[in-house]
């Protein structure tokens, strides 16, 4: 992993961001994460309960590494009240809907609204229309047109991708686009060095742990 990246070296840059996945139940949030983190797809995937956590690192360019701490949340409405816990301090969010379910876009819009109202001001939000493979096979199953979602994303200022966790289409692109939009420069600048991490976690603040230390990157992916 990039964990061993020498932190003092000017040529390598490392930044860590918290990402949260939101969206209606069974739209494929966990599958997208699974595809992104492990490049696999399970036909049988259990429901997520509460939230699942995993990390994945991507190489943005030859000297920039971005590590995502991903919170994959449960879709059922009742878990909504836990969501602030996960999007609090998140730097980016992926709001997922199912292109074969019109209702799921409505739900996605509600999530975007909530994020824009209650999450960090500068949060980068991406809208992902998942299950693209189904409509590519049979266009009649599509309930949300690309244009409609695209128009909404533009209006709300979101990144937009139609993805397929099953085939892997656009999944990496989605996360790369997010990484590119994240304020890596200012994160690094504020750390006063070539590398840094964003982690304005209240838990850290409370425990008084200094995030500037090299610990943040040195851990690597434990998942």
């Amino acid at each position, binding site marked *: 992993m990039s964990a061993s990246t020498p932190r003092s070296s000017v040529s390598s840059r490392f930044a*860590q961001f*918290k990402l949260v996945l939101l969206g209606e*139940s*069974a739209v494929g949030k966990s599958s997208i994460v699974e595809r992104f983190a492990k490049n696999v797809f*399970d036909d*049988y*995937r*259990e*429901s997520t*309960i*509460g*939230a699942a*956590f*995993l*990390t994945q690192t991507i190489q943005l360019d030859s000297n920039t590494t971005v590590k995502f*701490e991903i919170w994959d949340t*449960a*879709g*059922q*409405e*009742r*878990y909504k*009240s*836990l969501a*602030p*816990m996960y999007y609090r*301090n998140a*730097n980016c969010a992926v709001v997922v809907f199912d292109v074969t379910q019109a209702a799921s876009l409505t739900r996605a819009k509600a999530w975007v609204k909530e994020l824009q109202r*209650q999450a*960090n*001001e*500068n*949060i980068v939000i991406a809208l992902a229309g998942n299950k693209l493979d189904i409509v590519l096979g049979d266009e009649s199953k599509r309930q949300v047109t690309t244009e409609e979602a695209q128009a909404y994303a533009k209006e709300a200022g979101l990144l937009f991708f139609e993805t397929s966790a099953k085939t892997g289409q656009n999944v990496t692109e989605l996360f790369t686009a997010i990484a590119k939009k994240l*304020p890596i420069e*200012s*994160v690094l*600048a*504020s*750390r*006063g060095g070539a590398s840094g991490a*964003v*982690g*304005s*976690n*209240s*838990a*850290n*603040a*409370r*425990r008084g*742990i*200094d*995030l500037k*230390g090299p*610990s*943040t990157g040195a*851990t690597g*992916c*434990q*998942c």
Partner: protein
Amino acid sequence: MTHPFGEWVETGHQDVGPLFYNDGPLTPDKRVLKLRTLADAAATQDSACARMLAMSREGLVSDQFRKQLWPLLLDAPETPLRETPMADLPPHREEGQVLLDCNRSFVYFPPNLDDQSREIYQKQLYDLIVTVLRRNPVLAYYQGFHDVAQIFLLVFGPTDAIPIFEYVALYFLRDFMMPEMEASLLHMELVAAIIQAVDPDLAQIVPSDILNIAISSMLTIFSHDLHAYNDICILFDFVFAYRTMAIPPYIYAAILLLRKDKFFNSQDIDSSEVISVLNNVLKTFPETDSAIFEVTSYAETLFQNYPPQSLKLWEKLSQYSVLKTTAAPNTQEIVLEDNKDLDHDTDDDNDNGDGDGDGEIGNRRWTQNSFFPLVGNRETTSENQVNGGESPASAGGSQHSDATSMFDGTPRIPSVIDSFSAESLHDLPLPLAHPIYSLEEVEEIARQQVAEDLALKAERDRIAKERREKMRAKKSAAAAAGGAGSSSSSGSGAGGAGSMPWRKPHHRIPIWTETTTLVARLFANRPRTIINPRTVATMLVPRTVLSASLYGGVFSLLLAWYIHKHPQALPRSFDTLREYWRYIWSTLVARYF
């Protein structure tokens, strides 16, 4: 009837029982013996014996015994709570979600499932869940309910699972089936409280908000996070033997505490790392074959040494929570009553079917059914167990000494357990009595709990909203105060914080008390022009230390000047002092100003 192990009992092996089944891995011959004992317990409906076996290594071993003994352990009523078929009832509001989850069930077990059988199982699961929900419209469905349902379906089969699972839902999983999450969150709080009580150092590293990750384990009694069917069943055996929903948090705490070195490995661990470690600990659990037993016996130790009633949190818990309704609110009191009752039963040798002393306390019936056999192997689990484990045993033991008949008065097949139950009663820790609620009572509790849950949620939302508004007001005030003011969080920084708006300033203002910082701020950070004398004054005057030294300094200067001008003002005896003041005046003030 002859018993193949009858002779063995006669040899006077007194201390078989938990120790026997816990010592080391279950060898084939021990397993055979355990299966025999299980068969006896099932045939005689011996709940004490069943409890002991359920808590010993490998639990109830097979589904055959689980099917017979879980209802006994859980004190399930013999007749189903309700019998209305699903089709005769109006649909439940969350059947759509149930379908979504059922379609994604049976992922890890049963092994080698083909698509066709999986579909059959999924259909059965859907029917089971929907039947329970339709019969109990007061309950809401939660993702995770289907994980527990899967286990009951596999153990009991599609028809027999319905009554027992309905009972479990209403009496044990009720907290999770409220419209909001308030009652569920208590279970994670309990985990945090246990860790805080047992190991404050670990609690520092794993604070309560991070422990919310335990939610999937709590809501599903670990059936979501463990992927081996048998492991889940063994944990269910243990939980049902304790017959209280307060025990799963102890199991979770035990898992973390037994692997706490993983959290202390790194010197400066950050929160995402803690979450990763936490995640990993559970993902890799059980690491070995005996890990489950290690954890359950440690959970038992924790439960006895730090019973839920001893935790500060307990008082705060809702009286409707299953944490309380599946256990006595106050063990001590109830146990005393029950002991009396028990003695009475013993004297009369007048046992009812279950052989338990059902007593009357206030308007509530309590059962003597659930007491906890001491699981052996204690010395291997923890050193402080000796202290904690003994006191309740000695308290209860003396009264139980000749209470042989409390198990069962009816004649039955002799078993090795007889010798255990008669002799090791001395070792039994305090029974944890629990109330037995009727269906009507539980429904009433559920209704009250729903109202409470909604009220708590509304209160939480209100607080959150208030906080947001306060933050917003503060932010706009800061914006109005001008850009220069916002650099307060940067201290010595090069203005980096300004470019990271999501990073909240962690420390603000208290540094003012430091004179050097104050001066540095006044003269270095701020341009001279904006120093308002009045601001400086308001900052300085209230600071007692600062003002004292300031006034002191001014006063000394005045005094020095006065003495310099009027050398005769002080009497002779103040010569030294006078010299001192004159010196101050002539060297410091006169020379430099």
